[in-house]
């Protein structure tokens, strides 16, 4: 592991922690974008260039912006006066610390983890495209269907629900 990898990981984790702990929601969304960029840099260093750039496109470009839009649409841009934590926050912190301890123990003591590092695999855009069009073509089509359904569903959920009262008003 190079020093650059460790630095990227530290920036990513710090940004994630601040995204979960800042009071102002807009600051949280910006820290989240920084964290996603750090994860994309980690992917690039793990020889997954396509996934790294897709991460920047999808997460930083779309999801972070969508979250900022939702924050502004729900008028929660200012920091709240009262507590931002739920009543049972100590139990939540304890459970997540236990989860991390268990995962870390399992990772450090597992015998299934190979000791030597294999050479870097090649995942060029051509390879990825070939695999998507041959071996993974059915999941690709299904994911297209899922995305269409989710888009239509999101529009319907977020639509104004005034149609029923409007028609009732017109009839009366």
């Amino acid at each position, binding site marked *: *592991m190079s020093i650059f990898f460790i630095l990227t*990981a530290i920036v*990513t*984790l710090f940004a*994630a*922690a601040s*995204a*979960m702990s800042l009071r102002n*929601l807009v600051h949280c969304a910006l820290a*989240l974008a920084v*964290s996603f960029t750090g*994860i994309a840099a*980690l*992917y690039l260093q*793990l*020889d*997954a260039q*396509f*996934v790294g750039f*897709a*991460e920047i496109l*999808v*997460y930083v470009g779309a*999801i972070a912006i*969508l*979250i900022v839009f939702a*924050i502004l*649409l*729900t008028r*929660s841009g200012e920091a709240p006066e009262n*507590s*931002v*934590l*739920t009543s*049972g926050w100590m139990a*939540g912190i304890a459970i*997540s610390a236990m*989860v*991390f301890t268990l*995962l*870390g123990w399992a990772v*450090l003591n597992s015998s299934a*983890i*190979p000791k030597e590092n*294999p050479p*870097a*695999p*090649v*995942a060029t855009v051509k390879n*990825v495209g070939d*695999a998507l069009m041959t071996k993974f073509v059915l999941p690709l089509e299904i*994911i297209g269907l*899922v995305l269409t*359904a*989710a*888009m239509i*569903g*999101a529009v319907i*959920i977020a639509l*104004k629900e005034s149609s029923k009262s409007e028609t009732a008003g017109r009839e009366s």
Partner: protein
Amino acid sequence: MTALQGCLLISALLFAIGFAGAVTRRHAILVLIGIELMLNAANLNFIAFWRFGPHPEALTGFMFVLFSMALAGAEAAVGLALVIAIYRHKKTSNLDEVKELKG
């Protein structure tokens, strides 16, 4: 500590941070942000196992990450639409005040 273990530890810590945020914060959008962080931790695991695993030329872990990114996009769109719908109904996005289904 091998590079694979380092990646797995980073993603475990990212998952713990996302989980802690998702269960402790009161705002609905922050819960969604925590879920996104947990999904990213899982994706990092997939990429690490793909990179350091025995058969990287099969591209399975790689493809799993691509598809899970698409699903995360769909999930974020629907989740944020739900937050906006709840806000329009109840004029709040504080999860402690949305408790009609509480037993």
